[in-house]
């Protein structure tokens, strides 16, 4: 079972929830897909067992074969190729690795080489298998890292918790597309609510069953809660704002491992999700 945790807005508590759901399960895999700013490992502190590089294909021009016809430049929709000083120059930052230039070259002058854009670290932290995607600084897109991360945990037997990046763009879509259930984490501000509405639209578009966890709840009107009620979205959990929780989290403490109150709270949320997934599966078949 794959559960993705997302939020649209950053800092609402995706990582807090994803980590604690994984840690209260008997056994789980935690995938950190926030490859631009991965943080889960700071809390889980896994013993790293192995590291695999993530590579993409980059065009390599054979200068001797190249006749300067520029068909590759005309083809490339990402403007990643240019003719400078009588040779083809590759702008690797904007290349999407589509391979089109190698196909279009009439002289077979373009081959491909591998370029490392980041890595995946795999390790173990008590009952949790931890996989962290890390994008190298200066690289534009972490999508290939997310793809490789999700493929590496393709088995459906175990519980996989996917910690998605903020936003609602391509990298978020890649992170959630194979999920059986999405948890949307929302904070009680109009900022959080506007972004909740965006990811709500996204999960509806992807037709993935979902529920909302309200985080940082304060003793006053909660616009995110009102949004859920207005749209008949099920609220599967509530976490109150607490200075203690904020302080513990700031130091990288995994609260469900040290505090029975939080252990019970996250266990209840996890059970609720498992029930919802079971219900969705039976009602679909």
């Amino acid at each position, binding site marked *: 079972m794959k559960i993705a945790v997302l939020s*649209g*807005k*950053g*800092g*609402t508590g995706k*990582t807090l929830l994803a980590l604690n759901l994984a840690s209260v399960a008997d056994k789980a895999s935690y995938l950190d897909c*926030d490859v*631009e*700013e991965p*943080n889960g490992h*700071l*809390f889980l502190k896994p013993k790293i067992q192995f590291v695999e590089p993530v590579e993409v*294909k980059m065009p390599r021009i054979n200068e001797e074969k190249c006749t300067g016809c520029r068909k590759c430049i005309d*083809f490339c*929709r*990402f403007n990643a190729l240019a003719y400078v000083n009588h040779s083809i120059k590759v702008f690797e930052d904007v290349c*999407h*690795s*589509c*391979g*089109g230039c190698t*196909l*279009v070259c009439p002289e077979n002058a373009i081959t491909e080489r591998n370029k490392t854009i980041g890595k995946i670290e795999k390790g173990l932290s008590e009952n949790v298998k931890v996989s962290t995607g890390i*994008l190298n*600084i*200066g*690289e*534009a*897109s*972490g999508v290939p890292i997310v793809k490789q991360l999700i493929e590496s945990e393709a088995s459906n037997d175990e519980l996989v918790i996917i910690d998605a*990046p*903020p*936003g*609602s*763009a*391509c990298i*978020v*879509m890649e992170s959630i597309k194979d999920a059986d259930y999405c948890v949307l984490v929302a904070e*009680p*501000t*109009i*900022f959080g609510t*506007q*972004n909740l509405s*965006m990811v709500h*639209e*996204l999960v509806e*578009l*992807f037709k993935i069953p979902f529920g909302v966890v309200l985080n940082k709840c*304060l003793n*006053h*009107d909660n*616009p995110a809660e009102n949004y859920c009620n207005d749209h008949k979205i099920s609220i599967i959990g509530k976490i109150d704002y607490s*200075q203690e929780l*904020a*302080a513990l*989290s*700031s*130091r*990288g403490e995994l609260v469900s491992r040290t505090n029975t109150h939080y252990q019970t709270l996250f266990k209840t949320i996890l059970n609720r999700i498992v029930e919802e997934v079971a219900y969705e599966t039976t009602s679909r078949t």
Partner: protein
Amino acid sequence: MKQLLVLSGKGGTGKTTVASALIQLSHAKAFADCDVDAPNLDLVMHQRCEPIKTDYFGMPKAIIHEEVCIECGQCQSQCRFDAITYNQFNETYQVNLNACEGCGVCELICPVDAIHLESLVDGQMLLYKDERVFSTAKLKMGSGTSGMLVTRVKKQMMEEEIDTNIAIIDGSPGIGCPVIASISGVDYVLIVAEPSLSGISDMERIISTASGFGVKTFVCVNKYDVNTEYTDKIEGYAKRKHLEFVGRIPYDVEAVKAINQGNTIVDIDCASGRAVGQIYETIKNKL
């Protein structure tokens, strides 16, 4: 016009809260929200006019014309983005528009010319224009290309000839393409850091990213009292990197109330608003 971009690396540290306060304090006549896949600045800027809306076309996407397709499957095998799937029920090849990056490889190799790339509306650019110019956008869900839209949002703001010393830009979290697109060409970056293990790790990554552009960078800490030890660490880190540390903002329940009423934190009298006021006094002489 000088451009100040507010970034953070980690999400939710308070970029929009700080950016909106700085817009009010500096009486900036031009500002933009470059967090195009989770925009929020519009909620607190009290626009008094209707926006001018322009359709945004991202990369064109592949469309397969079924009546011409001979189902050879070459497009599917060459697509590096797994965007072409075979639908067994109606026996057709189809493009998953969420996955298609518009590279044109399928169009190139199709032996019967059944595939064409077509531009689709991927979102909307919004421009509010009265005595101030506010450029923002809404990305259509599922369309993806946010880096390109960030560039357009900034360009839309810069093309308005408005007499102002400073333009303030609210950025997006992370260090990838939308952030890189937003840093490109700005004069100053203000990083809003958060005093936590995660916040420090993310701040170090965004500072490395920004330093690649050689932009003058300021650092401040929001919710500093959540962990003063880490706040000190952030200040120390900034100094070691020769970046200017410009202030500390306390955690403030009043800030949540102000935002939820559609106000910035300097529209009311509150501790966080006063702290951003001091930050503005510190940086305004350096702009």
